[in-house]
């Protein structure tokens, strides 16, 4: 099953490689990984999407907790949560296809952030499935480039 694991870790050099190294050394899956500093500059937030049965996810959480730089580990999928991913797509356009592309963009509520003569750069945020559907909505040969951020998420519960 797909799990979203949210990690708070010390914002120190090498912390990312400790987490990434743990996954590769123990043969755990990483589908996506995002990381950035939080409002507390000494802390980073890392969000990892992994796939595995309950035993594997339990081990992932326990092994992450063992890393000295890791402050908290939460399996977001086990609680009410919001997840989002951002994609930037470069789509080629011409007179014949532009109307069709515009319709698709409207359908997904996607935003054109750069419009050149031959291509759009389009932005869309949403759940991963929505991003997949959006990408699949275009003819493959019209897509010049896709860049996804990977999933980030927050727990809906307000913790004290």
């Amino acid at each position, binding site marked *: 099953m797909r799990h979203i694991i949210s990690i708070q870790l010390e914002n120190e050099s090498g912390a990312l490689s400790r987490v990434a190294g743990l996954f590769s050394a123990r043969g755990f899956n990483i589908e996506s990984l995002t990381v950035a500093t939080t409002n507390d500059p000494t802390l980073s937030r890392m969000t990892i999407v992994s796939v595995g049965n309950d035993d594997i996810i339990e*081990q992932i959480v326990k092994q992450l907790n063992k890393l*000295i*730089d890791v402050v908290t580990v939460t399996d977001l999928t086990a609680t009410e949560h919001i997840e989002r991913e951002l994609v930037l797509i470069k789509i080629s356009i011409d007179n014949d296809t532009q109307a069709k592309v515009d319709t698709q963009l409207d359908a997904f509520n996607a935003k054109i952030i750069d419009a050149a003569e031959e291509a759009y750069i389009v932005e869309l945020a949403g759940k991963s499935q929505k991003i997949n559907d959006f990408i699949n909505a275009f003819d493959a040969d019209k897509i010049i480039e896709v860049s996804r951020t990977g999933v980030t998420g927050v727990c809906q519960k307000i913790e004290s």
Partner: protein
Amino acid sequence: MKLNGAQILVDCLKSEGVKHIFGYPGGAVLHIYDALDSCTTIDHVLVRHEQGAVHAADGYARTSGKCGVSLVTSGPGLTNAVTGIATAFTDSIPMVVISGQVPSAVIGSDAFQEVDAVGITRSCVKHNFLIKNADDLAETVKKAFYIATTGRPGPVLIDITKDATIAEIEYEGYPETIEMRSYQPKVQINTEQIAKAIAVIEKAQKPIIYSGGGSVIGNASEALTTLTRNTGFPITQTLMGLGAYPATDKQSLGMLGMHGTYESNMAMHDSDCIIAIGARFDDRITGNLEKFCPYAKIIHIDIDPSSVGKVVGVDVSVIGQVNDVLHALIQGLKGKTLSNIDTWWKQINEWRKVDSLAYKTTEGIIKPQTVVEMLYEVTNGEAIVTSDVGQHQMWAAQYYPFDKPRRWINSGGLGTMGFGLPAAMGAKLAEPDLEVACVTGDGSIQMMLQELSTMLQYHTPVKIINLNNGYLGMVRQWQEFFYEKRYAMSYMDALPDFVKLAESYGHIGIRVEKEADLKPALLEAFKQKDRTVFLDIITDPTENVFPMIPSGAGHHEMLLAGRDEMASTNDSGLNLV
């Protein structure tokens, strides 16, 4: 007080109470060595190879229970140390390794003797640090010792750039305490889990205590003994756990696992309640997981939550310091009535009658088992025994019953050949009044032979018991069993004359070829209190380690010496190593 980084580091080590450092100098650590030279409270042991430094610090730590400390230079100094670090990591040994690093200004430029020490060691340390600034030294050293020695212990590397050792800064002294929001090793024991464990123990008809290295590292020997005596339960111990409970006691069934006793493994297989204490269900213990302990409820006590449920599903887990949990269990069991387990003991005593450690002697040939038994006799079972890795390691574990913890020092998890000799040196420095024997083989001893030189320089008299069978014996045994006797590259041709070799290093060498000479040679060796003696004992080249659970088999499918001479395995067994 204005000090340079190197002086601050040395002051930190002094403040930590460090008495011995095992190391090897080089360009990046010259300032540290310069500062160390004027320090009168720390003895530095100059090894002959950095791997030897780390193994010696490891042997020192395992014997004394203190944190081992090792100091190496950048580049090859560090890479040589990695095997030692990984060895300590796998067996959860508290250790701080300090490595030099090239100056911070040239990091990343492929400078002379530069390697990414933090990157290389990341997967075999509990934690590591790179210090580029002298201001960070004191707090980082404090953190390193704190991390290495608390929770589940392990090695911590501190990589220090040369400029950080040179920079002069205002030093405010070594911090007394340290707070880390991301590392909270103190665990509150969950009393509900204790109650659940007791409920399982109360119902047990066929209980067994399965104790591992955690009982030794966690200094839980006394509590373990009390619990075992109070409950009257049988106890089996892992290779890493030997000595935590006295092996000569009647409740002890001996070691379990691949080369454990028949009674231990059969009792594990038939048990309805396994109390696992500081043990991690290693593959050498469990054999085929599908056949592992089919009837048992498993209680797992461990300091490391990730050990629980990693290999085997458990029914009750109690997380905490083994010693604390055992005390809670002992308290909780007071006044409880346990089931009568006379029938269980009767069954166990039947298994004991199989006498699975019996071996055949052959006229004119020295059996390795006999050597270990005689070593036990000559040392009254009181020696610290270190070992290398292979057949001799198993024979030492099987035929030298340890009654005290921290007397059996071996690389159980990583299985590092070459560990025994430097570890013996570290052990002798930790316990100078105890006899130290290094049981080794002609393959293993040659991996760290150079440390004979260090042992002369620092007067660490140990007795080297070389079980010389001319083979890489464990490899040969597996080839005999599982590779149709194709002995690919397991024969050691052109062995050195170990007697002359020992003599050239300034030690005493004795070669023993006849059984009649064995005991006199051992007595003579131990009579030489102040000398290292190398006993080169020519043993039966065809002897195999029995009993044995072949890879892929279950605990109840053991092979016994003289009864099942040829072990066999299946495809999954061959895959398992």
